[in-house]
């Protein structure tokens, strides 16, 4: 569709979606800007990041270290701020 020389590849006029199935639900916090990443050389497995997570997004892995559930994490950075050893860093994850 061309409008005065400008070409829209995907969108119709007014961004109208004429076909169904274009939207699907996301869990809260699906797209945070930053996600915590654990440095296993510094982590002492004290579980402080786990106890301070407001959204219960941090879970313990089988080897005793901790990981994040990307569906629930909002990227607030409390775990990064509260870690005594600087093992948690906030990084952009695709």
């Amino acid at each position: 569709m061309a409008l005065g020389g400008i070409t829209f590849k995907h969108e119709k006029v007014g961004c109208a979606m004429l076909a169904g199935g274009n939207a699907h639900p996301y869990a809260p916090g699906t797209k945070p800007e930053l996600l915590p990443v654990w440095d296993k050389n510094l982590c002492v497995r004290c579980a402080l990041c786990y106890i301070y997570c407001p959204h219960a997004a941090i879970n313990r892995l089988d080897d005793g270290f901790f990981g994040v559930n990307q569906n629930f994490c909002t990227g607030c950075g409390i775990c990064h701020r509260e870690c005594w050893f600087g093992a948690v860093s906030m990084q952009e994850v695709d």
Partner: protein
Amino acid sequence: MDKYSLYAAQFLGFKEHFLPKGHHACQGCGVALAVRHVYKALDRYNVAIENANWQIPWSPHLPLDTTSHPNTTTPSLLTILKKGKDEQISAPLMICFDNETSKNGADTTNLLKRIPAIAAAAGYTYAATACPSHPFDLIEKVRTGWERHGAAYIHILCPCPVAWGFEPQYAVRIGRMAVETRIFPLYEIAGGYYRITCEDEYPRPVKEYIKAQKRFAAWSAKKIESFEQDVKAAYDMLIGQCRTSSSQ
């Protein structure tokens, strides 16, 4: 503090009862953190918290209809009925999640809480203050309130990054600062006996807490100074109550 007390969080267990799937809390929400700790504390008693009286705006147990929600400017209240051994006597365990977002929340009189003392005077056998920045203290108080005979009241200060005006990553740190500056001292009133559960000999300056938040941006130096004196007077009164109640 010895080097092993860092691992105290391991003893709480890793079973999660708080379902984050449905809640709509913001980044770094103090209320969500406090609710999660309350869930963890009442884990061993087989309490159906879902059936309790919830007054929390974003709770997953409420429908998404905004008209039925309580006013967000009032403190959120969770009331659970404790059943006695003979199933006849039931007393409430009331937990107030206070994020100080009322219209005059930044007023000096509202920052210094006197509600636990009022609850104790009204016949509650256990009244306490808690903060999610001290999670083991909070969990211990909720369990004590559940196990003690009679009605219990727990006042929890929950930092709110949106209303208070600070970065979400400082949510726990601001709560700890409120305790360490003695603006929100952690104490409990068990059967009329006052006890301070978290005491530092040298408090932080009140100015640090004021400067860290945007809601106090309009405060003048004179007002901060008078507020410092109010905090000191309130804490001295609390210590006096501790001494008089223990000497009787």
